[in-house]
């Protein structure tokens, strides 16, 4: 439980921010726009397999929201805390182990990302009347949150200027959001593009988000997300351990 003070601090800060308009707005604006624009534009007209487009779209938007929120909120908070407010140094100088610091921050990213994803799920259910989720969706969402919160720590530790976070978002996170099966099925891509997309972890999350039963594809997706998450988590903990000014 050594991670708990770090997690508790993050939750105190989250509680103070969550009701601020700007915070909610920046976290949910784009997912909401995508959901309403594509959902209302194509929602019931287009079918993908045996599902309506909104049933296909909603899990993708939930995955994307969880990714952007866990990644952005963790990387921004950490880079600002490290480079500007110097609050990370307080934690680093305390007797909490690097692994516990990593766990506390990642858990806070999970809560932040899950909260944003839950809002999208509720809006999708209430406005569009769909709830196309299974326990596999929950597993995919959880692994996605671990992975991108960990990635947020890695970026937050490596960045030399908080403004550089936008670079990671623009050149890595946003393309991944669009090409990893959020808005259209990956199997419609040319084979080369599909091969590249399958290197992106969000692709596996999107597979799980829409899965109804466990097959080899789901097992492969879970394995891929676990391996990605573990590797990035351990790398983040190592960056914290080796932190030196």
């Amino acid at each position, binding site marked *: 439980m050594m991670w708990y003070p770090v997690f508790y601090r993050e939750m105190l*800060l989250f509680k103070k921010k969550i009701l601020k308009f700007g915070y909610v707005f920046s976290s949910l604006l784009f997912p909401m726009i995508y959901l309403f624009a594509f959902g209302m534009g194509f929602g019931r007209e287009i079918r993908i397999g045996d599902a309506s487009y909104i049933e296909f779209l909603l899990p993708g938007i939930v995955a994307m929201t969880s990714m952007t929120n866990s990644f952005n909120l963790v990387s921004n908070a950490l880079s600002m805390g490290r480079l500007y407010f110097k609050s990370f140094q307080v934690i*680093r100088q*305390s007797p909490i182990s690097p692994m516990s610091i990593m766990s506390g921050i990642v858990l806070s990213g999970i809560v932040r990302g899950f909260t944003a994803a839950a809002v999208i799920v509720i809006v999708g259910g209430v406005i569009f009347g769909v709830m196309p989720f299974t326990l596999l969706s929950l597993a995919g969402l959880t692994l996605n949150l671990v992975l991108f919160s960990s990635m947020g720590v890695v970026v937050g530790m490596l960045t030399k200027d908080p403004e550089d976070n936008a670079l990671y978002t623009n050149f890595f996170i946003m393309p991944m959001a669009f090409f990893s099966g959020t808005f259209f099925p990956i199997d419609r891509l040319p084979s080369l593009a599909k091969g590249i997309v399958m290197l992106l972890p969000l692709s596996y999350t999107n597979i799980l988000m829409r899965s109804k039963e466990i097959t080899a594809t789901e097992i492969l997706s879970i394995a891929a997300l676990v391996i990605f998450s573990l590797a990035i988590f351990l790398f983040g903990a190592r960056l914290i351990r080796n932190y030196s000014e």
Partner: protein
Amino acid sequence: MIRVKGLTKYYGNKCAVDSVSFEISRGEVFGLLGPNGAGKTTIIKMLTTLSRPDSGDIRFNDIDAVGNPDGIKRLIGVVPQDRNFDRELSVYENMLVYGMLYGIKDLQNKIGKTLALLGMYDERHSCIDVLSGGMQRRLLIARALLPGPEILFMDEPTIGLDPQIRRDIWDIVRDIRDRGTTVFLTTHYMEEAEAMCDRIGILSKGKLITVDTPAALKESVGAYVVEVQNNNGRLNRVICSSRHEAMEIAGKSGNGAVIRRVNLEDAFIKLTGETIER
């Protein structure tokens, strides 16, 4: 209590700290005096596990602080130069989180006592941003004292504070020392170093020039100073070993020469060839 040997740190090709060695005894107030950029903050960061030295040895009560930084974290408290609070949280919440990081038992009670000790109990529910600079500095000290450290590190504890509040902080540091805590501080204020420190290390361009008591440092360069204004309006200082010598030099210099005792600034200038901007 603390033994530092050959401490060296480079940033790129620039040597920020150059083979610095010193020892600090239990219960003393030890100060590092030097101008901005001398390497004071880099040394304090290395001593408090935030920066890894490129070479050298740091031992706290024989614990190797470089090889085993986690081994010393419960011994030390840090008052950084930056007011690195969580600004969205209240005074109490900042203390609470800090206490939890150190696994302190009976935390609520200890927070109350520590805030009361620093005269901040009535501010416990205040937001950080409404506190004055002096109060924020007190809170930094309170936070660092909460786990009951054996050694308190203070990086420029009175920088940016007005003279009265600076003196209040000096009183607090003396009180901390009287309670048995060893204090290591950095400063570029001569009067602060002289007023607070049992011993002073003079740092210049990353090198530790000398370590001694304020009185011994002054004695090492002379006894009296003759200040004479030259034709360009600049003040020339001549350090003399005796009053007799000072009187002679003043007599030759004509009217306007002032004789006074050597102060720490004279010693600093003589030892380093540098001046410190006030």
